[in-house]
């Protein structure tokens, strides 16, 4: 099998970065995320981490993304520049959970008769180098959400070997093309792939979506939501939360329109022009988050909008835990 030695990795990333934006797990202070390679000299390569606190969704939906510029004159508005960002992008080392989340984003932005051109521009030339995940962490439950953590579908699949070199398998023609560019750095070697360790958190999603459909008014939401403080951490670190808001910033006659992440945890999210808010209290906002993840998305796209990466479980300051929510929902007895 082809092997990319660890000491050749930086060189490989540099070559890839010649004609593409390359996103790699890195540490910025103590915050890990998929940052652009060679963007900030202070970033530290962090491939030894299990995963990153900030999800890789910024590659296809940046938190703030310019859309177009405009100029007004009297009654007229002229769009001066449409800022669709096409171009080659590479994501290196993405895990199965986040890759499955990317599939969710594809469904939301590209299917059912709607195509988001800003998303499509960033997504269409994206080469995915996924890393097989042999040692899951205490918060991981991707298997329960249906991810294949050893063999995720990607352009290239890499396996970290015992000596930290990477076994390299090109899976698609796009993956072959990329591999050809860095072929000189690779060695051909017999390798033993690591043994996969089991995932300790289990979750069985059978019937959850259908049951939730009967539970909109159930009092369990009061109890479950009592600990939540309605910040947006869970939605912003989530690899598959994709809600955004379209905003504008003006200076005189010129302005920029941009979109930025939004969160169903915020009061402003559902605030209507007339001042009415259909989700005025935290219970309603909390319930919406879980129903969207586990019921509504299922009904529309046939998948859960949670892929078991565990970020919200790790980072929620008040201990909201989606697995506990699922278990509580299963315990609830519905009246016949």
């Amino acid at each position, binding site marked *: 099998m082809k092997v990319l030695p660890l000491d050749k990795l930086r060189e490989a990333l540099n070559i890839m970065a010649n004609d593409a934006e390359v996103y790699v797990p890195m540490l910025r202070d103590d915050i890990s995320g998929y940052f652009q390679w060679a963007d900030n000299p202070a970033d530290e390569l962090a491939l030894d981490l299990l995963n990153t606190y900030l999800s890789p969704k910024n590659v296809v939906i940046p938190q703030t993304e310019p859309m177009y510029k405009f100029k007004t004159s009297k009654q007229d508005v002229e769009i001066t520049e449409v800022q669709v960002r096409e171009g080659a992008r590479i994501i290196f080392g993405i895990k199965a959970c986040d890759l499955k989340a990317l599939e969710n984003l594809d469904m939301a932005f590209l299917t059912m008769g709607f195509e988001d051109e800003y998303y499509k521009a960033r997504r269409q030339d994206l080469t995915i180098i996924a890393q097989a995940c042999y040692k899951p962490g205490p918060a991981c439950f991707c298997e329960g959400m249906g991810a294949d953590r050893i063999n995720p579908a990607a352009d290239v699949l890499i396996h970290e070997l015992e000596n930290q070199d990477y076994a390299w398998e090109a899976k698609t023609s796009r993956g072959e093309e990329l591999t050809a560019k860095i072929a000189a750095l690779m060695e051909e070697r017999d390798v033993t792939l690591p043994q996969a360790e089991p995932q300790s958190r289990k979750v069985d999603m059978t019937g959850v979506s259908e049951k939730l459909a009967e539970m909109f008014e159930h009092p369990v939401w009061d109890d479950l939501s009592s600990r939540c403080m309605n910040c947006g951490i869970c939605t912003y670190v989530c690899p598959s939360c994709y809600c955004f808001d379209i905003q504008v*910033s003006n*200076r005189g006659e010129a302005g920029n329109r941009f979109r930025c992440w939004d969160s169903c945890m915020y009061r402003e999210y559902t605030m209507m022009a007339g001042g009415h808010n259909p989700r005025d209290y935290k219970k309603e906002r909390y319930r919406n988050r879980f129903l969207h993840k586990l019921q509504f998305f299922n009904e529309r796209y046939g998948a859960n909008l949670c892929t078991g990466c565990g970020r919200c479980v790790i980072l929620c300051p008040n201990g909201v835990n989606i697995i506990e929510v699922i278990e509580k929902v299963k315990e609830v007895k519905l009246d016949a």
Partner: protein
Amino acid sequence: MMKSFLQYLGIEPERYQMAWISGSEGQKFADVMTHVVDEVKKVGPNRKLREEHE
């Protein structure tokens, strides 16, 4: 409070000035404005806390 806080964040104090001017104090208003403009000119163009709009 605000002035001290902005200084703490590295904003030049000359850029943030406060004065109490009554509606009848036209001359004071003019003097204060001239003073503000002079002070701000001395520190030059602001590059801090500023969105880049091209």
